[in-house]
């Protein structure tokens, strides 16, 4: 078939498709309701067929470039991402995220060790040798902390600011740290290891110092509420970073490229889960932990319940109901006998 003939036969069809695609880019909703939308996949496939024919027959660039442009435009529309569904978000939080944390228990566990071992070590060491706190914090910092957790302070845990202001501050600060922890795992995991260990040392020394000087009661009252969400989320973000770093070091039975893509996918999901947890933690920290007037039972009781909730959620969320022992097959029984 001559090129002119080919164009005369199908030119009108290409023009219609092109016009509809242009309309979709301008007025998406209206164009998608038109009857042409139903015919689009078939029309697009025909166009691809025409492009392949035009190339195989060696038609000039006038025609192949024109078809190529329409194909690229159509490809973007046909393969566009589906609209997000809130159901998916809920499913992620209830089931997929805890499952993912359990699947990545090695990295998350390692991150937990990197946080909690320095934390407990510093907590004990500072009780034993109180002057060690001064090698972690400057004296102005220590004075600030002492003012924050002074039993005489009406809103414990902060030096100034209203609930809402502190909520914004916690969100910006803590979640940015979590995201950076994940990202810095790319530096062979060094970033994640550093963040986890430093946080362990700082939290442990602070807790040890305040407990040692008798401000322990307001301090533990303050942190017991949000620590469940906050510490666990930081551990998970650290685990996500370690996942990236360890995959870069030892990709296992995969090439490094695809292994890193898979690790990035897993890590980003963990980071998003940690983001949701830190949002909750910031809410609790700003609006609940700072209330000074509640009795100890309520404070520590609610804190304990939250810890129980977080651990149950992560350990059991999305778990398959436990199945009965599968019946032994014939071969196995005979083998045993």
């Amino acid at each position: 078939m001559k090129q002119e003939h080919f164009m005369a036969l199908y030119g009108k069809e290409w023009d219609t498709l092109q016009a509809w695609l242009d309309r979709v880019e301008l007025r998406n909703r209206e164009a998608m309701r038109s009857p042409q939308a139903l015919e689009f996949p078939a029309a697009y496939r025909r166009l691809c067929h025409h492009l392949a024919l035009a190339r195989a027959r060696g038609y000039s660039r006038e025609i192949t470039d024109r078809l190529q442009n329409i194909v690229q435009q159509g490809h973007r529309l046909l393969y566009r991402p589906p609209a997000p569904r809130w159901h998916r978000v809920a499913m992620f939080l209830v089931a997929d995220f805890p499952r993912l944390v359990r699947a990545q228990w090695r990295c998350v566990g390692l991150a937990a060790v990197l946080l909690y071992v320095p934390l407990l070590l510093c907590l004990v060491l500072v009780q034993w040798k109180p002057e060690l706190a001064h090698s972690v914090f400057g004296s102005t910092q220590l004075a600030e902390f002492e003012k924050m957790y002074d039993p005489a302070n009406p809103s414990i845990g902060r030096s100034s600011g209203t609930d809402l202001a502190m909520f914004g501050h916690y969100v910006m600060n803590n979640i940015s740290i979590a995201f950076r922890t994940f990202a810095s795992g790319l530096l062979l995991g060094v970033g994640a290891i550093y963040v986890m260990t430093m946080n362990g040392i700082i939290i442990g020394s602070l807790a040890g110092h305040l407990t040692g000087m008798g401000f322990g009661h307001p301090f533990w009252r303050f942190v017991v509420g949000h620590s469940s969400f906050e510490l666990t989320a930081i551990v998970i973000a650290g685990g996500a970073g370690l996942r990236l770093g360890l995959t870069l070091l030892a990709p296992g039975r995969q090439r490094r490229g695809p292994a890193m893509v898979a690790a990035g996918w897993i890590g980003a999901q963990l980071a998003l889960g940690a983001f949701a947890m830190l949002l909750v933690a910031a809410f609790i920290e700003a609006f609940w932990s700072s209330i000074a007037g509640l009795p100890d039972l309520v404070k520590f009781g609610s804190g304990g319940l939250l810890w129980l909730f977080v651990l149950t959620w992560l350990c059991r969320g999305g778990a398959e109901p436990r199945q009965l022992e599968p019946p032994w097959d014939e071969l196995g029984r005979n083998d045993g006998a």
Partner: protein
Amino acid sequence: MLDTVRQFETPEGVFLRLRAAGALPRAQAWSIDLAIRAAVFWGSMIPLAFLGAGGMGIGALVMFVLTWFYPVVCEVYFHGQTLGKRAMGLRVVNADGTPITWMPSVVRNLLRAVDMLPGVYGVGLVSTLIDPYARRLGDIIAGTMVIHTSELPSGSQVPVLAAHRPPLDLATDEQAVIVDFAERCAQLTPQRQQELSNLLDPLTGQTGEAGTRQLVAYANWLIGRP
């Protein structure tokens, strides 16, 4: 060929051509985004300032969203384009040329923290210079790339001459060479043009300036001009 065009075969059996965007237009797009975000932040802080300390809290939330989620939301909802990328004619796509989805966008924008590292995008710049498709680390791990939205110039820059049919039927790549030559000859010195067109002496039967003109006339015919 030494080229930044990446070709992908789609399920329909045709090839997509993606033109990777280098560091400079991307840096410009990022600067535009930065200016927009700064303007939005300051614009929102003016009314929030009247709310006192609580306003500062909301301001911090605005800052947080602008920092981490502005690029993700823009890329997913506006066809892979933040406002800066749209202004510069760039687009983020998945490695297989399909429009970007949520998780790859989250990965590439969270890993921005590493690409930014020493000073202003040091790691990212080195990565874009090394990678054949100018991807920064975040792009490599997310499996995405940034491309130019404008299509390849398809003969529109060929100088206009009366079309002349080539004496032989040319293969597709041979046609492409002639059209590319005609498109770029404005950027070459006359001496270089003639040096190149003299190589096709057997086809045109002419040398020197006449040979160049003959090739441009063929190109005009190939792209369908009268």
